[in-house]
């Protein structure tokens, strides 16, 4: 539990101070290591809020959180992948 809290804190701080890809790699590693690591969504929200939108979605032009959406999909896919491996 302590590991998880520490990892979450490091992850969130990394989004502010490290290059974006370091936080991204840490998030993916964390998703494999910890169960339901929802902290990765905070990383996505921080990066999207800090650096602005990357690309505009053709459907929802006002939705500017592309990086968050990518991490959300990663969270769902990796959770599913882990469940399948365990079965």
């Amino acid at each position: 539990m302590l590991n998880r809290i520490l990892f979450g804190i490091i992850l969130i701080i990394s989004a502010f101070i490290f290059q974006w890809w370091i936080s991204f790699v840490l998030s993916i590693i964390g998703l494999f290591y910890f169960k339901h690591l929802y902290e990765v969504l905070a990383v996505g929200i921080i990066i999207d809020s800090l650096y602005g939108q990357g690309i505009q979605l053709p459907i929802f032009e006002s939705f500017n959180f592309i990086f968050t959406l990518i991490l959300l999909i990663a969270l769902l896919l990796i959770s599913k992948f882990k469940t399948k491996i365990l079965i």
Partner: protein
Amino acid sequence: MTYHRRNKNIINKKAVVVIVVLVVLFFFGPSVKSTIQWFSNPIISTKNAIVTPFKTSAEYFKFKQKLVDENENLKNENRRLEIENLTVESLKEENKSLREIVNFQENTSDLIVAKVISQPPFSPYDTFVLNLGKTEVFVSNKVYYSGVLIGEIEEVYGGTAVVRLYSSPEKTLFVNISGNETEATGLGGAGFILTLPKDIDISENETVFVGDSPIGRVDSIESDQSGAFQNIYFRYPFNINDVDFVQVSQQKN
């Protein structure tokens, strides 16, 4: 045989989290962004204050031969620039006298200096985060670095602003190269691409302009043997990762 039942609670929990996050971001996105920008300014400024002294000390560990080569290159570059500078001085004089003849009214806009607190490669997109303090800027204000037009203010928050560089992927702008007005598209990583007919003679290192402001230098030219067009790649004439201060036009749109 053992059958595993899917845990419906976990699926529901995940679905709830996904929906809540998306709904919050969709409806309260600007407030979330504003709060995070407010938090980020002191954190990033502190990090920069800690990291900056180490950046220069890392230079001491460069190999001697590499430094000698770099020194030689810089000397050559300096000689070339000194010669070029002589031409620039005479052109300046000529420009001044021509402006006097046509009674040219200089379109001056107030420029303010802002510190860049975050830039690529920290940003996944070609954006800068500026620390503005109490200075007021507006969305779409032009941003310059050493007289080179680099982008526009995209978002303004309390004390900070996000600048989108013209080199952001898919961003387009009209440029002038060798007297030809054409559309250039950002490629990301400070690069641009533009397409011109093959018969227009463009050389490497040629300057590209947006209006009167220079924006970049031609990096490479790619022409298809069978096609009638050539792709011209150009970049800002400096490394965007090294930009620490920029000038922001304060014209209200």
